[in-house]
């Protein structure tokens, strides 16, 4: 695969920049971002806007931690606190998690399967912009929501918006409508992008890449988009129902008129639980690429990994009511959801052992992506174990809606997802920008952020055991919660410092980083076969593959993988 551009019969020249603006000027950059349908640019735009929203939602979290640092604090008013945890949760799930994982899938899937772009490039741009505007709409509520009725500002119903909080009687003004319509729009964008990714994987693989030869990253993203396609429409249905209730006087969730608040919980979590796996599948995907490359071994148990991912996908569709073990379902209902939830632990455990099996006996290189993945293994194990604990109904009755739950899902989403996203950024940044991220700044980021993360969230397990409920805006001094809350807030400082090093690194290395070359990690998947950054058409000549590690085959013609697979 040479770097020279050779003309191939399928290759169409990208259209020249149409309007004659100076290249490199601000207007031309903005114009190229708005008009682009290139999967790589859109991927980076997804990740970039996801990181912007991350800073925003992270600042909201910091405000909450300041408020909770000491008992009976007056830093935030109770109604402001409600708005902040709602906006924090909604933003982190829909405007940080989703766009960043779509960004990775967008950037990498076509490269990894040897394609020139996504199946529907314009739909791809549509998906991005509709997501972006849904984010703006949500935050516009701070300005627009007081509007006509003069009540309310940002949404304050919590990210799962339990009924009847969203009813017109309890949520006056338009704040809930901003939440509803923003999520409805975001859902449309997510489904559009997911359909696009799924079609790309099924229809655009390069010659020789059978399903069994796809990189695990692609497989796990396939499971991710499959879950989005099944789960997000349920959320859209929920949002349509709320809107009908609020605007046309329908009675879906109006208990006074025969509606059911429980039904909302079922419908929301039918979406909500698969959504958790939507967010964690890309973490598995990144770990499954990084760990083999830095252990210098092919992934251990490829077919089992695929089977485990697919079965996690299926099982996750039938576990939603473990979020509702406290609402008084029948014993049969409780038992069913406890058992189905515990079943998830089996394929997940298999994955962890497979990653360990990959590292076992490997020649491990402790570079930054690998270090973040190793932290992921430990932290995700803790998250999984607390998850199994919470799945046991009696335990859940004791700790549901306590800080133990908060600690659990932050270990999943930060310890699991965010750490692998960092690993992915350190791993693929050289591909996207042609320069390595600085190792020393990166180490500072790793150390500070890891310390900060555990300082913040480990004590929250204890707070849960001590009976501190989530979502309270303050607490009395005699509860025994002071110390752990204070420690938890101190952790935020370390996390923020770590993130500063990370952002500094992203900016510094863009100009001053070491030149990366095409394949700095000596990796094996197709994205490393093209230039860094790749040309708009990705590959001068479309590749053809004969094994799961096409670049290994190219580098070792004497002993290619396809002789063994």
């Amino acid at each position, binding site marked *: 695969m040479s770097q020279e551009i050779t003309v191939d019969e399928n290759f169409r020249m990208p259209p020249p920049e149409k309007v004659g603006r100076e290249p490199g000027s601000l207007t031309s950059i903005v114009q190229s971002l708005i008009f682009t349908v290139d999967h790589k640019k859109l991927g980076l735009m997804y990740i970039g806007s996801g990181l912007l929203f991350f800073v925003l939602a992270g600042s909201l979290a910091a405000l909450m931690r300041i408020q909770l640092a000491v008992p009976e604090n007056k830093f935030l008013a109770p109604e402001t606190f409600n708005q902040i945890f709602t906006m924090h949760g909604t933003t982190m799930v829909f405007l940080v998690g989703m766009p960043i994982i779509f960004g990775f899938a967008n950037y990498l899937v076509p490269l990894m399967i040897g394609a020139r772009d996504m*199946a*529907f490039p314009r739909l791809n741009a549509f998906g991005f912009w509709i997501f972006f505007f849904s984010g703006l709409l949500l935050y516009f509520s701070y300005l627009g929501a007081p509007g006509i009725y003069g009540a309310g500002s940002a949404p304050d119903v919590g990210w799962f918006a339990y009924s009847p909080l969203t009813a017109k009687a309890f949520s006056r003004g338009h704040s809930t409508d901003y939440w509803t319509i923003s999520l409805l729009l975001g859902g449309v964008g997510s*489904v559009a992008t997911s*359909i*696009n990714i*799924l*079609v*790309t994987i*099924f*229809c*655009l*693989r390069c*010659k*020789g890449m*059978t399903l*069994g*030869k796809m990189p695990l990253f692609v497989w796990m993203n396939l499971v991710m988009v499959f879950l989005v*396609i*099944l*789960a*997000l*429409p*349920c959320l*859209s*249905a*929920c949002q*349509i*129902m709320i809107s*009908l209730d609020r605007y*046309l*006087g*329908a*009675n*879906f969730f109006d208990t006074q*008129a*025969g*509606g*059911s608040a429980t*039904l909302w919980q079922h*419908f929301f979590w*039918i979406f909500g639980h698969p959504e958790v796996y939507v967010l964690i599948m890309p973490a598995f995907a990144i770990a499954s690429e990084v760990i083999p490359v830095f252990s210098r071994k092919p992934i251990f148990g490829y077919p089992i990994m695929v089977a485990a991912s697919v079965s996690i996908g299926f099982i996750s569709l039938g576990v939603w009511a473990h979020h509702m073990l406290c609402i008084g379902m029948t014993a049969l209902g409780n038992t069913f959801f406890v058992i189905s939830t515990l079943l998830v632990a089996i394929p997940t455990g298999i994955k962890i052992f497979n990653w360990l099996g990959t590292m076992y006996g490997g020649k491990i290189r402790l570079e930054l992506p690998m270090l973040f993945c190793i932290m992921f293994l430990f932290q995700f194990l803790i998250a999984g174990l607390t998850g199994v604990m919470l799945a046991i109904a009696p335990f859940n009755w004791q700790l549901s809606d306590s800080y133990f739950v908060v600690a659990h899902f932050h270990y999943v989403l930060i310890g699991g997802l965010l750490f692998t996203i960092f690993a992915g950024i350190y791993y693929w940044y050289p591909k996207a920008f042609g320069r390595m991220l600085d190792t020393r700044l990166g180490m500072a980021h790793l150390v500070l952020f890891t310390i900060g993360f555990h300082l913040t969230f480990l004590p929250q397990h204890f707070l849960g055991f001590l009976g501190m409920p989530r979502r309270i805006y303050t607490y009395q001094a005699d509860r025994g919660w002071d110390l752990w809350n204070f420690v938890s807030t101190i952790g935020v400082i370390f996390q923020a410092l770590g993130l500063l090093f990370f952002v500094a690194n992203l900016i510094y290395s863009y100009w001053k980083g070491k030149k990366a070359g095409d394949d700095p990690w000596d990796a094996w998947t197709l994205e490393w076969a093209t230039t860094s950054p790749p040309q708009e058409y990705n590959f001068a000549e479309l590749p*053809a593959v*004969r*094994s799961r590690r096409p670049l290994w085959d190219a580098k070792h013609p004497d002993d290619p993988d*396809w002789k063994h*697979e």
Partner: protein
Amino acid sequence: MNAATDLTSDWKLPSPRKVGILTLIVAESALFTIFVVAYLYYMGKSLNGPYPHEVLEFPWLGSIALFGSSATILAAERALRGGSHQRFLFWWGLTTALGIYFIFFTASEWWKLITVDGLTIDTNTFGTTFYSLVGLHAFHVIVGIILLLCVFLAAVRKKIHPDHHEHVEVISYYWHFVDCIWIVVLTVVYIISTRT
């Protein structure tokens, strides 16, 4: 694995358009499932009337029109692949007309329910779930009609060629899906809930 590693053999993958529309149909099915479940969940739980068995009549004409349109769109596709422009135009136009008739039929049914029976979306949970489920379906029929009309107008201007059979097929998949949903709605709303 030797067969798979042989790169000289043909490499054929499914058509993006078809996989795309089938995936969209899966997503739409998930959306409808929630509304159907809501209907079933609230069946027989309305606190006050009117109840389904008092006001709903089996929509014979509308259903015949909609199911018939699935057959006529198949005939239109066959005509296009056979290269007969006139027959394509006839069957495609008939499909569109049947779709439009279905919408008028639903509109007159709703008119009667609202003005004569006094059933609106906020009357009871039957009204809520009935109008949202049937309305969501009708909305999909309307989107289908717009797609059908686009193709019809293009065909009138002789812009549709046999090469376009895949584009047309994608629309017909969607139209069949709308039909299948109507089978579910018919069963749940007009058969099961009027008998309980």
